[in-house]
């Protein structure tokens, strides 16, 4: 498994501002993912972040709204830009770990609980 930390753990922000969420892993991983989980809902993939390449965004998510950086194999950031109350959610990063070269297990960070007023 992997030890994953996220900062901040929670924040309350004003509409129109931006927040950058950090995700740190204790080992080098190729693939990192960013998810959003709205209250009482399932997890929705925002984007896949591979080191050395542009992030790949899922339908409904765009780079201008959710810019992502992946400067090395242990770190990534997600920025939520020009926030509105609809962006209130839990944002989670996850990493893919390969087990024995076969299985691709994904582990989640603790999440960042964002409230936009």
């Amino acid at each position, binding site marked *: *498994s992997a030890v994953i930390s996220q900062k901040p753990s929670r924040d309350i922000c004003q509409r129109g501002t931006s927040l950058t969420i950090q995700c740190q892993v204790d080992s080098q991983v190729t693939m990192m993912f960013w998810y959003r989980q709205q209250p009482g809902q*399932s*997890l929705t993939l925002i984007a896949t972040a591979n080191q050395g390449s542009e992030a790949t965004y*899922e339908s409904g998510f765009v780079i201008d709204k959710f810019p992502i950086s992946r400067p090395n194999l242990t770190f990534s950031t997600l920025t939520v830009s020009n926030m509105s109350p609809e962006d209130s959610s839990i944002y989670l990063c996850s990493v893919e770990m390969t087990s024995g070269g076969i299985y*691709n*297990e994904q582990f*989640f960070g603790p999440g960042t609980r964002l409230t936009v007023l």
Partner: protein
Amino acid sequence: QQPVQSPQAVILREGEDAVINCSSSKALYSVHWYRQKHGEAPVFLMILLKGGEQKGHEKISASFNEKKQQSSLYLTASQLSYSGTYFCGTVLLSSGSARQLTFGSGTQLTVLP
């Protein structure tokens, strides 16, 4: 395409068994099961690859029926600690190297004493 989970919710007494199902309309490469407690991150339980294998961990096991593109999670002799929301996540066979997980809507499991 989001996999379909059933049931949406289940309430058990301690020691009873439960089955949670996850089905996809598309061919799957793998199925991942997670448990999430309120206010916490999802915790990885197990992964199943195509091929119909079954895996287990203590009293929690799962199977993957490749023909039906369906996976089932079995909770045997449930404990209070099993309470939470269970999610299946699927990786499509067509996803290639991308391996993005698409999650079902979740099954809320409550174990009562």
